[in-house]
C-alpha cells in the first residue's frame, strides 16, 4: 500500500525535478524506487485490506510488487545510456514509467473488477505514450499508434466483459475475504450463466491481449521492435508480469464457479508456445526474436494457470523471476550493442566475445537461462510448472493437460535454435561490424553480474521463496 503511494509521489516529484534540472531526474526516480523497495518489507509484514473492497495487499501481491519495483529500479538506475534518446524529456519518460508501474501494483492486489479495469488502464495509457517517446523515429511512432489502436480495442472488450459479469452476478468483488464475493452469489436464472460465461471469456481475451498470448499477439512484434529499447524492456518484464498475475488472480478466484475457460485457456497457451517459437526461428532482428520469445514465455506461464488452483502462484513467481531477470540482462546488453552499432540484427553481435568477453559471458548466461538449461533458474521455472501440471493431471478425473506439457517440452527444444543464434554470433562468428562497441560502464556490468549470479543461485533458495508466499 505504502509502496504504491511512494511510487506515485516519486513520479510526480520526478516530473517537477525534471523541469528544474534534467540531470536530477534519474537519481530522484532511482532513489524513490529504492525507498519503495524498502517499504515493501514493511508492507509485507502488514497485509492491508481496503475497507471499500477495492484492493487487498496480500503477501503474494507484495512480493510481486517487490519484484517489479526491483526491475524498475534496475531499468531506471542503469538508464543513463538507454534513455539518452529522450534528450531533455527524460524526466517525462521516467515519470510515465513510474505511473505505469503504479498500474502494475494495482493489478497485483485488486479485489474488485473495477480496480482491475483501472489498473489495466493506468498500466497501458503511459505505455502508449512511452512506445512513441522517441519522437523523431518513425518506427517508434508507428509502434505507439499500433499499440494504442489495438490496446484501446482490447480494453473495451475487457470492460464489456466486466459489465457482463456484473450483470450476471451482481457483484464486482473477487478475491479477498468479503461476503459479497462474486463466487458467493447465485447467478440469475435464465440467461445468467450464459451471460457470466460470455463475460469471463471477454475478460480473458482482453487480458490475453495485454500479455500478448496467441491469437492476440499480432501487435507485439511490431510494437516491441519499434519502441525504444528501454520501453521494450519495460514491456517485456513489468507489463508481462502484471498481465500474467492479473489474469491468474481473476481466473483462479472464479475458477471453481466456472470451469469452461480451462480448455480455451489451455489452447491459447499451446498456441502461444507454438506461434511464438516458430515465428522466432527465422527472424533477423534480435529484438524481434525476443518479442516472439516473450510470446512463448507467456505460453509457459498460461500452461501453469490451466491447473486452476491457486497453488500455482508461487511457481508463477519463480518463473517470472527467472524470465524477467534474464530478459533484463539481454535487453540492457542489446541496448548497449545496438546503440553503438546502429542495428538490432544478430550480426551486430558478431565477435562480441572477443572484444568484451565478460559482457558476452553474462548475456550467454541469461540466454541459457531463458532457454531453460539447468542449473539456471529458467530450467527450474519450467520444471516446476511441468511438475504442477503433471501432479494436477494425475489427480484430476478428465486427465488434465499433460499433453500440453509435451507440447511445451518439445517447444523448449525448438527454442534452443534461436536462443543459441545469439550465442553463436557472439562467440563463434568473426566480427564484421566496423563500429567499435565501447565497454559498458562498470556499474552496469556489476549489476548485470549480480543478476546472473541470482539466476544461478535462485534454485538453491527456492524453498524459502515459496515459503514467503504462503507465510
Amino acid at each position, binding site marked *: 500500500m505504502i509502496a504504491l503511494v511512494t511510487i506515485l509521489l516519486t513520479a510526480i516529484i520526478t516530473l517537477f525535478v525534471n523541469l528544474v534540472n534534467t540531470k536530477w531526474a534519474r537519481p530522484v526516480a532511482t532513489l524513490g524506487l529504492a525507498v519503495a523497495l524498502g517499504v515493501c518489507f514493511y508492507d509485507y509484514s502488514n497485509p492491508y485490506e481496503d475497507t471499500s473492497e477495492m484492493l487487498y495487499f496480500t503477501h503474494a501481491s507484495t512480493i510481486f510488487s517487490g519484484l517489479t519495483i526491483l526491475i524498475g529500479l534496475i531499468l531506471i538506475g542503469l538508464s543513463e545510456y538507454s534513455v539518452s534518446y529522450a534528450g531533455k524529456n527524460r524526466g517525462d519518460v521516467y515519470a510515465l514509467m513510474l505511473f505505469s508501474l503504479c498500474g502494475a501494483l494495482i493489478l497485483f492486489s485488486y479485489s474488485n473488477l473495477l480496480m482491475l479495469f483501472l489498473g489495466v488502464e493506468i498500466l497501458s495509457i503511459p505505455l502508449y505514450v512511452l512506445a512513441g517517446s522517441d519522437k523523431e523515429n518513425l518506427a517508434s511512432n508507428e509502434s505507439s499508434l499500433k499499440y494504442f489502436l489495438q490496446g484501446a480495442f482490447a480494453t473495451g472488450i475487457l470492460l464489456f466483459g466486466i459489465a457482463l459479469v456484473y450483470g450476471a452476478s451482481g457483484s464486482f468483488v473477487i478475491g479477498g475475504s468479503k461476503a459479497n464475493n462474486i463466487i458467493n452469489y447465485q447467478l440469475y436464472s435464465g440467461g445468467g450463466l450464459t451471460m457470466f460465461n460470455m463475460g469471463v471469456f471477454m475478460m480473458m481475451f482482453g487480458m490475453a491481449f495485454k500479455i500478448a498470448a496467441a491469437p492476440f499477439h499480432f501487435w507485439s512484434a511490431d510494437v516491441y521492435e519499434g519502441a525504444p529499447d528501454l520501453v521494450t524492456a519495460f514491456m517485456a518484464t513489468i507489463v508481462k508480469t502484471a498481465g500474467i498475475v492479473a489474469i491468474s488472480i481473476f481466473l483462479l478466484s472464479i475458477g471453481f464457479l466456472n470451469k469452461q475457460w480451462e480448455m480455451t485457456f489451455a489452447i491459447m497457451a499451446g498456441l502461444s508456445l507454438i506461434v511464438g517459437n516458430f515465428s522466432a526461428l527465422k527472424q533477423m532482428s534480435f529484438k524481434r526474436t525476443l518479442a516472439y520469445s516473450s510470446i512463448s514465455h507467456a505460453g509457459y506461464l498460461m500452461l501453469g494457470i490451466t491447473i486452476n488452483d491457486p497453488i500455482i502462484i508461487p511457481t508463477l513467481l519463480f518463473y517470472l523471476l527467472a524470465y524477467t531477470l534474464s530478459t533484463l540482462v539481454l535487453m540492457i546488453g542489446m541496448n548497449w550493442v545496438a546503440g553503438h552499432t546502429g542495428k538490432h540484427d544478430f550480426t551486430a553481435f558478431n565477435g562480441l566475445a572477443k572484444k568484451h568477453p565478460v559482457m558476452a559471458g553474462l548475456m550467454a548466461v541469461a540466454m*541459457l537461462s531463458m532457454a531453460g*538449461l*539447468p*542449473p539456471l533458474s529458467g*530450467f*527450474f521455472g519450467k*520444471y*516446476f510448472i*511441468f*511438475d504442477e501440471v*503433471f*501432479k494436477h493431471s*494425475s489427480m484430476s478425473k478428465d486427465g488434465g493437460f499433460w499433453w500440453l*506439457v*509435451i507440447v511445451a*517440452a*518439445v517447444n*523448449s*527444444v525448438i527454442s*534452443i*535454435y534461436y536462443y*543459441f543464434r545469439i550465442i*553463436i554470433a557472439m*562467440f*563463434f*562468428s568473426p566480427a564484421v561490424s566496423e563500429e567499435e562497441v565501447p565497454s559498458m560502464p562498470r556499474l552496469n556490468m556489476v549489476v548485470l553480474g549480480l543478476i546472473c549470479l541470482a539466476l544461478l543461485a535462485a*534454485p*538453491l533458495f*527456492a*524453498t524459502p521463496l*515459496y515459503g514467503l508466499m504462503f507465510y
Partner: protein
Amino acid sequence: MELILIPLFFAAVQFFVKGRTASWLALASTLVSLGWTISMISGYAMDGSTVNIVDMEWLKFAGIRFTLGYDGISLMMVLLTNLALPIIVLASWDRNYGKSPLYLGLALLMQAALVGVFLAQDGILFYVFWELALIPIYFISALWGGENKNRITLKFFIYTFFGSIFMLIGLLLWKSYGSSTNGFAWMSLVQSQIPSNIAFWAFLGFALAFAIKLPLFPFHTWQPDTYAVAPAGGTMLLSGIMLKMGLFGFIKWALPLVPHVGENMMHLLSVLAVIGIVYGSIIAIKQNDMKRLVAFSSMAHVGLIAAGIFTQSLEGIQGAIIQMLNHGITAIGLFFVIDVIERRMETRELTLLSGIAKVSPVFAVMTLILVMGSVAVPLTNGFVGEFILLKSVFDSNATLGVIAGLTIIFCAVYLLRMVQFSLFGPSNAQNKKFTPLTWAEGLGLGTLCFFVLWIGLNPDPFFGLTERSVSNLLSLFNSIKVQP
C-alpha cells in the same frame, strides 16, 4: 562432494590466470581429483553397498533432495572420468587451446558435471548434472572446432537436448507413483508402484535420452560430424567419458523400469544395438578420415556394450562396466594418436600418410598397443571386456551373439587398415615433419598403454570393485513387484 568442488574451484581459478600457469593448475587439479578418487576406492568396502556423501534438503515442496552417493559402479565411472581428465589436459598441452584458461575451465566444469552424473542419487539432480555436462562440451566444440562447426555443434546440442527433455518427462511420470515426500530419490523411484502402461512411456523417455547420447542406431547422425569437428580434447571428452553417461544411465536409471515394461522392449533395443555394431563397422572400413574412422568404430564398440547391458545378466553388466573403462582408455588413446599425427602432418587423411613408424618407432609401438586393445587381442584390456560381453549376448540370444561377434573381425579390419596406411609402408617426404614426441604426449600415451596392458593382464581388481554392486542391483530389480 570434494570431487565436484575441486574441479569447480579450479575452473573458477582459471578466470584469473593465463598461459602455462593455467595448464599447470588444470593438471594439478585433475591429479588431485584422481588421487582423491583412488583414496575413495581404497576406502570402499567392496560389498556393493551405497555410501551417501551428502544428503540435504533442497527443494522440499517439489520432492527434490541434494543427494550424492556411490557404489562400486559409480566409483568405476568416477575413476574413468578422473583418469581421463589429466590425460586430456596432457593431450591439449601442445595445442594453442591447451593454454587457454577458457578451454581448461570448461573442461574442469565438464569434469564436475560428469562426476555429478555418476554420483547423483536423486532423479532431478541427475538430470541437472546431465544437462550441465552438455554446455561446456558445446562451447569447447564450437569455439575450437573445424569447418562448419556452428551448424554441426548446434545440431548436436539440439539433438541431445531433445532426448533429455523426454527423460525429464519420464522422470515426472515415474515419480508421480513413488513416495510423495521425497519422490525423486533413486530408491523411491525403484520401489514405485508404476502401472505398466505408464512405465512404458517413462521408459521410452529414458531410452530416447540414453540412446541419443550413446548413440544407438538410428539416433547416431550427430555423432561422426561432431567427433570430427570438435578439437581433439573435445572429442576425447565426448567419446571417452560423455557417452558413458548414456550407458551408465541405462544401467542405473532405465533398468529398474524394465520389469514393468517387459522383456520385448529389451529385445528391440538389443537388435538396434547389434545393427549399430555392424553398421558402424562397415562404414568405418570405408573411411579415409582417421577421426571419422575412430568415431564409427566407437559406435560399433558402444553397440556391443549396450547389447551386454540389455541382457540384464551379471556377466553382461559386469562386462559392460569394465568395457566402458576400456573403451574410455582406448578411444581417448586413439584420438590422442590421431591428434599427434594431425598436429605434425597437418592432415588426418589416410591416403596422404605413410611410413611414420620408420621416423618414430616409439610412437608406432604405443599406437599398436592401443590398437590391439581396441581390437581385443588377448592380454589387452579389450579382450577381457569384449569376451565376457560376447558370451553374455550369446547366452541370451545365440543369433545376436554370432552377429555381434563380427565386431572383433571388423574392428581388426578397419583399425589394422588405419595402422597399415599411416604407420607402415614406405616413408614419404612429408615425414621429416614428424618431430619426436614431447614429454606431455609421451606421458599421456604411455599411461594409457600402461592401463591397456594392466587391465589386460590383471582385470580382477576392476571386476572386484563392481561385482557385488552389480549383483545387488540385479537382485533389487528382480524383487520389483509389477503392478498388473
